[in-house]
């Protein structure tokens, strides 16, 4: 083992290899230096405890370090939001690349790190394209397919041909001086520069938030034009190899045919793999933990397969993502879907960062720089001008067919959004230096064009969009009513088309949907998943989840430990339960007396009094009933509520196969019921049409002890969880003098064992809760809680149905004391609700 002082830095990042074999005779090179002499004098044949194997890890180590460094770079300038608000991230990353490149060049006197086409096309690009395809808004994408294809095919060909020809024309004019370029090479150059780059476009437009149609046009074009670019590039490349004299009509026709094959073949490969992927996810239930991996690997395989068949790999992976998203998301478990989403973003964002940094680094290399002012400037001008001309001409044609024509400002943004990026650079880098003698000039020109479009156009895009008052995307928050309205709207449009006998977009879409529903879904989607497919239901579900979450947060802020403790379970349960129970739960929402639900019978026993006054009358009559009964019932009730098997919140065990938190069915069920009850009791019925008596019931439940424990004032009762969370109901009562809560009776009833009431033990009078000092500032706790509690339609609204429904969940508890209802009216039972 050698103590290598000169590599102290590496020592810090040490890999400890305890039993290493120095006898293998491998030369140890650390940053190109010969292995240092073994100064400890021990024989090489002996065992060394620690040794440095830089050469073993060089490759992966450098890769990892680069990823780390680029990540750090991003971190650094994300610290300053003002900076990223004005200059797009992509431009900043390129600048950082300049700096890093300068450092490397300063150290090595050569550019050792450049973006090689292999790295770019095989490792960096697929992730970004997959991400784009997977998150593609399908309806929008296919709805604007015509326009997108027009721009992608005609626009790209136009760009390539005009730029190539114009440059050649100018070259013939002699402005560029002596260059060894012929027409074909100019065409080749034009074709590699023709494509609008998806990576650059995404990076800039994601921050600008233009309206969705505009975005999908630019972005869709940048994705789909790859097929065209690759074909143009390959054809021109082949022509350059063949030589000008061997090109004839047959070759040109072959070129056109190859375009069709490459583009459609690529798309087809993508679709085939999407089908495979969907089928695969149908049966990955038992290997949930690697389920997300399939998405990435199969998509990547589609990319490689297309590449292997010399089809358009970008189109393949795009279509793979576009086609599989729906089925995959439905088939996989919810956690896997989330994993895929995040992992996809991590990969895509990571590659994007690396690409831009390396675009910057690549520039700091004197070897590639060949300056020809006329060539470079003219290329820039031509690229810009022909893009503008192309967009306006194509839009003019398109507008004759579009129902909603593209406006002038849209066209300006479209043409200005023609950013070139790493694809062009990588293609230029791939040029064969032997055939194309001015390769370096082309690379440097491409780099200049890329920098110009990404940096200058990227920076000015936002001000331009603002200045032109381009329609921006509106807020994206989902609202149920909008979804409903949109749905109704779609049906109306279809119906009108049917009635008027027109065959339009809506008609076609409807036919496709029918087809999809009838044939594709049964094949590609799990039968269990098909049920959950309705988008409206998903929105409803998500909104409910959101409400519950915000409620939990609120509850925590109010100091309830019940939520802190069981938050995990809450989330978990919500997801599971909601989906399965929703149909059971729903019946009670608005029909007080409907007997449709399985739980309604016990419920209606208790709650059949629709008019509050009747309810109170009953209470008056029953007031004299013996306390013992009540106590028994109450005890029973409390036991029912809180007695359950030993509780394990979180089992700390390691398993590579599963990640479940808490698998005990009963336990989960139990915790779910309790948390739901606690939380939802507090929701005031915000719904119109729910009768008063319903609202008051839970309050009554809490107030049952009142009769007995009048001696407790609410100060010493503190406020239990139940009190806090039912304060909407009970709050008014409590502050009205009816202080004691269910908790106090619990202590009276002798059930003090905290083990049985883990959620509420802190609230017993003996243990002063830590926050009571804070709370006790002259305001009755319950009142305060009432003030703090989130109650507004916007906060809690959508949970209302659930609130009622949870009662159906624990209605068996209520059913235990059908006679008790109304027996123990709180002394100051409010006729109207507090607040």
């Amino acid at each position: 083992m050698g103590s290598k002082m000169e590599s102290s830095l590496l020592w810090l990042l040490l890999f400890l290899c305890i039993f290493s074999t120095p006898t293998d005779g491998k030369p140890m090179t650390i940053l190109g230096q010969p292995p240092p002499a073994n100064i400890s004098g021990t024989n090489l044949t002996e065992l060394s405890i620690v040794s440095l194997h830089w050469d073993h890890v060089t490759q992966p180590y450098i890769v990892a370090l680069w990823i780390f460094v680029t990540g750090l770079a991003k971190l650094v300038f994300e610290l300053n939001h003002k900076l990223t608000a004005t200059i797009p991230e992509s431009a900043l990353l390129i600048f950082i690349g300049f700096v890093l490149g300068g450092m490397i060049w300063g150290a090595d006197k050569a550019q050792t790190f450049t973006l090689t086409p292999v790295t770019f096309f095989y490792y960096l690009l697929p992730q970004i394209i997959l991400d784009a395809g997977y998150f593609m808004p399908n309806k929008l994408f296919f709805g604007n397919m015509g326009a997108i294809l027009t721009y992608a095919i005609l626009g790209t060909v136009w760009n390539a041909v005009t730029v190539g020809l114009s440059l050649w024309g100018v070259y013939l004019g002699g402005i560029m001086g002596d260059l060894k370029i012929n027409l074909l090479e100019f065409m080749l150059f034009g074709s590699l520069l023709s494509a609008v780059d998806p990576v650059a476009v995404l990076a800039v437009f994601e921050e600008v938030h233009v309206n969705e149609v505009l975005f999908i046009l630019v972005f869709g074009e940048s994705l789909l034009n790859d097929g065209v670019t690759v074909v143009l590039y390959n054809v021109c490349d082949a022509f350059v190899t063949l030589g000008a004299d061997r090109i004839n009509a047959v070759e040109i026709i072959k070129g056109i045919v190859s375009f069709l094959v490459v583009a459609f073949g690529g798309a087809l490969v993508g679709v085939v793999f999407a089908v495979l992927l969907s089928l695969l996810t149908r049966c990955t239930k038992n290997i949930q933990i690697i389920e997300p991996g399939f998405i990435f690997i199969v998509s990547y395989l589609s990319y490689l397969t297309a590449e292997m068949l010399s089809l358009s790999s970008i189109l393949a992976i795009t279509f793979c993502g576009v086609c599989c998203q729906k089925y995959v998301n439905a088939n996989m478990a919810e956690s896997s879907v989330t994993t895929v989403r995040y992992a996809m973003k991590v990969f895509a964002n990571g590659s994007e960062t690396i690409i831009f940094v390396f675009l910057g680094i690549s520039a700091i290399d004197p070897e590639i720089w060949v300056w020809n002012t006329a060539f470079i400037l003219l290329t820039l001008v031509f690229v810009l001008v022909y893009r503008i001309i192309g967009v306006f001409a194509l839009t003019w044609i398109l507008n004759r067919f579009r129902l909603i024509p593209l406006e002038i400002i849209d066209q300006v943004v479209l043409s200005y959004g023609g950013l070139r990026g790493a694809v062009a650079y990588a293609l230029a880098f791939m040029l064969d230096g032997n055939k194309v003698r001015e390769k370096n000039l082309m690379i440097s020109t491409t780099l200049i064009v890329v920098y110009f479009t990404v940096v200058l156009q990227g920076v000015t895009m936002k001000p331009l969009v603002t200045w032109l008052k381009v329609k921006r995307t509106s807020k994206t928050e989902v609202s149920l009513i909008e979804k409903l309205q949109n749905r109704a709207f779609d049906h109306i449009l279809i119906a009108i088309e049917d009635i008027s006998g027109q065959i339009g977009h809506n008609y076609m879409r409807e036919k496709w949907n029918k087809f999809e529903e009838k044939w594709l879904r049964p094949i590609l989607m799990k039968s269990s998943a098909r049920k959950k497919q309705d988008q409206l239901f998903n929105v409803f579900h998500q909104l409910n989840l959101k409400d519950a979450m915000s409620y939990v947060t609120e509850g925590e802020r109010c100091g309830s430990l019940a939520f802190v403790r069981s938050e995990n379970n809450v989330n978990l349960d919500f997801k599971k339960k909601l989906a399965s129970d929703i149909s059971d739960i729903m019946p009670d929402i608005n029909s007080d007396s409907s007997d449709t639900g399985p739980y309604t019978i016990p419920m209606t026993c208790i709650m059949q009094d629709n008019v509050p006054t009747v309810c109170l009358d009953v209470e008056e009559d029953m007031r004299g009933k013996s306390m013992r009964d009540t106590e028994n019932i109450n005890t029973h009730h409390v036991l029912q509520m809180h007695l359950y098997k030993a509780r394990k919140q979180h089992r700390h065990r390691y398993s590579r196969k599963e990640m479940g938190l808490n698998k005990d069915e009963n336990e989960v069920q139990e915790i779910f019921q309790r948390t739901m009850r606690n939380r939802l009791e507090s929701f005031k019925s915000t719904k119109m049409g729910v009768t008063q008596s319903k609202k008051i019931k839970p309050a009554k439940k809490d107030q049952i002890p009142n009769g007995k424990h009048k001696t407790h004032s609410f100060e010493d009762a503190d406020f239990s969880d139940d009190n806090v969370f039912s304060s909407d109901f009970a709050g008014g009562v409590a502050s009205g003098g009816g202080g004691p809560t269910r908790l106090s009776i619990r202590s009276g009833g002798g059930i003090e064992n905290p083990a049985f009431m883990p959620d509420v033990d802190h609230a017993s009078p003996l243990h002063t809760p830590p926050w009571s000092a804070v709370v006790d500032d002259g305001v009755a706790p319950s009142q305060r809680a009432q003030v703090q509690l989130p109650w507004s339609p916007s906060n809690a609204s959508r949970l209302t149905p659930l609130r009622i429904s949870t009662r159906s969940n624990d209605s068996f508890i209520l059913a235990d004391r059908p006679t008790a209802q109304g027996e123990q009216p709180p002394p100051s039972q409010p006729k109207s609700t507090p607040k």
Partner: protein
Amino acid sequence: MGALFSAPDDHFQDLSEKTGFSPEQIQILHKRFKQLSNDEDSLRRDDFNNITDLACNPIRTQIIEAFFDKRNYRQNAVGSVEEISFEQFVIVMSHFLPVPLHNMTEEQRERMRREKLRFLFNMHDTDNDGTITLEEYKHVVEELLSRSGAIGKETAKGIADAAMLEVASITVGRMNPDDFYEGITFDHFLKILKDIEIETKMHIRFQNNACALC
């Protein structure tokens, strides 16, 4: 009616000016009208119900009803009729003409928007009292979801409730527990759908040449 078709070309010209359809489009629509009505001069509900493509549309009754709703004839009349003439048919259809957005003032745009939304509103407000009540809305949602088998009637009710609450919270803001939300008025309707660019969406493509019909 007889006079109407004795000089159809003139009449079509009038209709074209009145509704914004091109004369060719009117021709096509007229053909369709005849086809639907079995060469009669008026359409009845049954004729609509016989359209095969429409059969599986979940909210078809509402849509059909819209054709027989006097409110949609742009005449300030209220109520519903038993049969509609070609003119009425075209007028209802004209709600779905694309709006020429460019060279349009903000005011005109807003007017178009209101007009289109009014059509939708009327469709939901079946009793014409100016509000979409919970009952009415529930009915819409139930029908809307009736075809997706997985969602039961109860869920549909829940969704309708939640949507209604959402409207209440958007339009009224914080409500007191005792407040009763009457229903969606037209103003509220405008407000909740302000993010949907109805003027750029509520349209279908009406063909100009007859071959589209075959």
